[in-house]
């Protein structure tokens, strides 16, 4: 019993989304009312079970848990948000929206409600409205880098590369040591045509995370592309290569990338290795 509770607590800590595991762990607890043994944590367990239940589509279980939570916390905003979520789950977006808007009217600063509203709009495909709400949220809470990430992704779905790049820059300002964010920024820059910036950012990725294969692919592609653009400048009007390094450096970089990629694929299985080598030779 107590080990299930511990496992559930661990899953809560790591904020992983594992509905099946949670339900499997929690089912015996709920049936034998072992949840009460968790003491104060019991309500956290109930909330966790609720979210997993609606993830798995077990609406009846979710409703039962919700009733328990409502009896204990009758006027809680946190429980109200769960009502909103279950409405979303069964396909009543308007009710959910009303609930979230009510929550925001009572308390403007409620982050849970703002985020759920944005998630609701995104789930139903109203991208324009989502972006507007997210921008309003970020106007106040501009240190929420996950929100900036979300906004960047939204812009990318609409192929608005400059805006997406701006959002990634905000993320990088707050998390400068995370190589993944630099990678996203590099790829956005590459897609926009800022090859000089893309090259630098790919190099940064490779500096922060040794032998990062995506990084090295990026370096090779960009280095080759810069060489092409230099050879035939008229073909690509959008390309920005003013700050790009000298051809000699480019060659060295391309070589380094090839070398590291070969080393990385050495330990892969044969088909992978062969395909990579073919591509690298070309």
């Amino acid at each position, binding site marked *: 019993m107590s080990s299930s509770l511990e496992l559930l607590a661990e899953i809560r800590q790591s904020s992983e989304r594992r509905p099946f595991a949670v339900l499997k762990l929690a089912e015996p607890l709920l049936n034998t009312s072992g949840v009460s043994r968790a003491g104060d944590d019991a309500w956290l367990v109930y909330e966790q079970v609720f979210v997993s239940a609606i993830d798995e589509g077990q609406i009846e279980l979710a409703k039962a848990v919700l009733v328990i939570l409502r009896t204990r916390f009758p006027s809680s905003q946190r429980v109200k948000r769960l009502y909103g979520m279950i409405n979303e789950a069964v396909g009543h977006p308007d009710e959910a929206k009303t609930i979230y808007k009510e929550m925001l009217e009572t308390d403007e600063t409620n982050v849970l409600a703002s985020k759920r509203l944005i998630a609701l709009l995104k789930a139903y495909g109203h991208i324009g409205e989502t972006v507007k709400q997210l921008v309003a949220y970020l106007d*106040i809470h*501009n240190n929420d880098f996950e929100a900036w990430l979300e906004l960047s992704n939204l812009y990318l779905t609409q192929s608005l590369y400059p805006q997406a790049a*701006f959002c990634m820059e905000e993320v*990088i300002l707050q998390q400068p040591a995370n190589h993944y964010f630099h990678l996203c920024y590099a790829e956005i820059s590459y897609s926009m045509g800022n090859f000089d*910036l893309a090259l*630098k950012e790919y190099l*940064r990725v490779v500096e922060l995370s*040794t032998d990062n294969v995506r990084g090295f692919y990026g370096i090779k592609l960009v280095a080759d592309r810069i060489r092409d653009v230099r050879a035939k400048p008229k073909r690509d009007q959008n390309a920005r290569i003013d700050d790009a390094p000298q051809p000699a450096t480019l060659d*060295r970089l391309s070589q*380094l990338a090839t070398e590291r990629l070969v080393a990385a694929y050495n330990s892969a299985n044969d088909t992978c290795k062969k395909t990579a080598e073919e591509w690298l030779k070309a």
Partner: protein
Amino acid sequence: MSGLAESTEQVMFLDPAIRNWVLFPITVIMVLVGVFRHQLTILMTGEPPKPDIRDIRQAKALIRGQILAQSNSYIPLASFNERKKFLCSAFEEGVYLKNKNAKDQSPVNLMADPKNMEVMMDGMKKQMMGIVPQTLIMGWIQFFFSGFILIKLPFPLGLRFKQMLQSGIMTPNMDVKWVSSLSWYFINLFGLRGVFSLILGGENSADGIRDMTAMGSMGAMGQQSGQPQDYNKLFMAMKDNLSIVYHEWDLANIEQRVFVKYGKQSRVFTSAAK
């Protein structure tokens, strides 16, 4: 009793009744009072005031400026300049200020803001909770337990302490190591912190030391933390800060750093050509 006290230790035998009826009771009473204070403080502490959304926005805008100034080397020059220009003009015009009209006025009168009043009252209540029991116990000890020696300290002290620690007993020769019950009170005051954190958990309001520091800095602190921060001034300061930031892009010589990292080059050349 103390005739031979020049070179050897003074040896005195104390009545065991002193130990039973003074030493233990003082400690027990202090522990009980501490626990009582802790529970009372929990009852009396009101909920912290809910921040207004415009306050949050103000505070976070300032943080944004700070982050930009701090991490400016991780984004390219153009992006930095863009943000610098935007933030500086925003700070100048007071876009993020809570109430723009108050920008040019002097800071609001402290008393007028009802929310601030609650916070101040809470703070004062907490301080009263700390001071009153201490004073009471000290007076009680002075009244009941003065005029005799209670314990012998294991470490020597200077002569000046004699007056404070042996307050009821006028003897010129007695070693300062022998002290009265008031000093036992002080020892308990500092020592029971560990006991309280065991009984009451980490954050407890039964801490004697915290009260003493609070008493000491009451004058200075009260003024400073109570006054609502003048965000306009803070924004102006941040704007000046940002305008003098020298942007040096971290990725300027990254090619070299990568070559060094992967063993293609032995070290970074600072002024090498690209």
